């Protein structure tokens, strides 16, 4: 969890910017992103998909979403 991206409470386009920034440094593997709105979840999923990352799991934690993104 230490290297999870915590984008909770941040408005557009921050969650996507943070996720893409991480993907520039980490070419593959697993990335965890925490967001707190459906909109952010959709936006991060879409942006990750464009870069070839798959959303393999979404866990609803209270009011937040823990998203797991993977790329081989």
């Amino acid at each position, binding site marked *: 969890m230490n290297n999870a991206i*915590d984008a*909770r*409470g*941040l*408005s*557009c*386009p*921050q969650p*996507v*910017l*943070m996720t*893409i920034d991480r993907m520039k440094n980490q070419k593959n593997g697993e990335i965890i992103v925490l967001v*707190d*709105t*459906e*909109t952010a979840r*959709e*936006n991060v999923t*879409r*942006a990750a998909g*464009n870069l070839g990352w798959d959303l393999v799991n*979404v866990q609803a934690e209270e*009011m937040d979403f823990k998203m797991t993104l993977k790329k081989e």
Partner: protein
Amino acid sequence: MVKNYFATRWGIIGVGAVIGILAPILQKLGNPGNMGICVACFERDIAGAIGMHRAGVVQYMRLEIVGFVVGALIASLLFKEFKSRGGSAPIVRFVLGVFAMIGALVFLGCPWRAMLRLSGGDGNALVGLAGLIVGIWVGTLFFKRGYNLGRSQRSHTAAGWLMPLIMVGFLVLVLIYPQIEGQFKSGVLFYSLKGPGAMHAPLIISLVVGLGIGFIAQRSRFCTMGAFRDLILFKQTHLFGGVVALVIGALVTNLILGQFNAGFVMQPVAHNMHIWNFAGMVLAGLAFALAGGCPGRQLFLAGEGDGDAAIFFMGMIVGAAFAHNFSLASSPKGVGPHGIAAVGVGLAVCLFIGLTMRKKI
């Protein structure tokens, strides 16, 4: 998790098309020219209706705006997305709202109206849209340098209800104090006897169309600023699809209804001072980008419990009051006496905000 079809590519295109079709129909039913829906203009009319400015030609309680917020509230409650939140630099959002409104009123329209003006044949809209894109582009430069306004916090559920309740309050005021033929005042509300404020679709239609658009826009996250921002920042065309659909939908509807009239002069509620059409929208575009949404999107966010978006709306209402009380707003004759100075001040304030607020998250 329920799949949200409105948030798919065809979903957002459909929503853009529906807005594009409904706006010219509202115009046919009485709303001002190329202003079937204009979020900035309609908020300015609301500011006039409650007497925050006394520009006699732009005073009317626009129920489209009420519908946008309440429609978004209903959608967010139905789909369990209502989340009361706020506290992400509210004063900055307020100031951005003020200058977004001032910039929009120098051009005479928000991004929605810029596109509707274009679909109605108003060539000046191209100049305004160019300004909008430049303003948003400047905003993306700040984003790349780490600009952000910090995190919002959860709040009491009731806090998120306040903005929709204010809108319901406006609706109640209209019902208690309806327009009286030939009178500029009814109870506490001001009305226009001539000018754009005197042009409006029937109340019930304005409200129902507003509710419908509020509902589908909340589901689809429709945003005219985000459309260009995402294209510039991420080369993503998702939201842009909605904007293109809006323009095409409105163009076709205008052609069918005989409302298309190509040219730069004698366009409804517009002037052709190109530099200030451009600069006004640079200011508005930059302010919308820094605040994270176009004025429509801010209303839909406010409806789903976002208190920061509600503060932005309040800023726009106060900005409208400044714009008319200080003669900053343009008219069909051209820019207001102090409009140019206000654009300069607004750009300086937005640059200050963009340059200084780069807190590391």
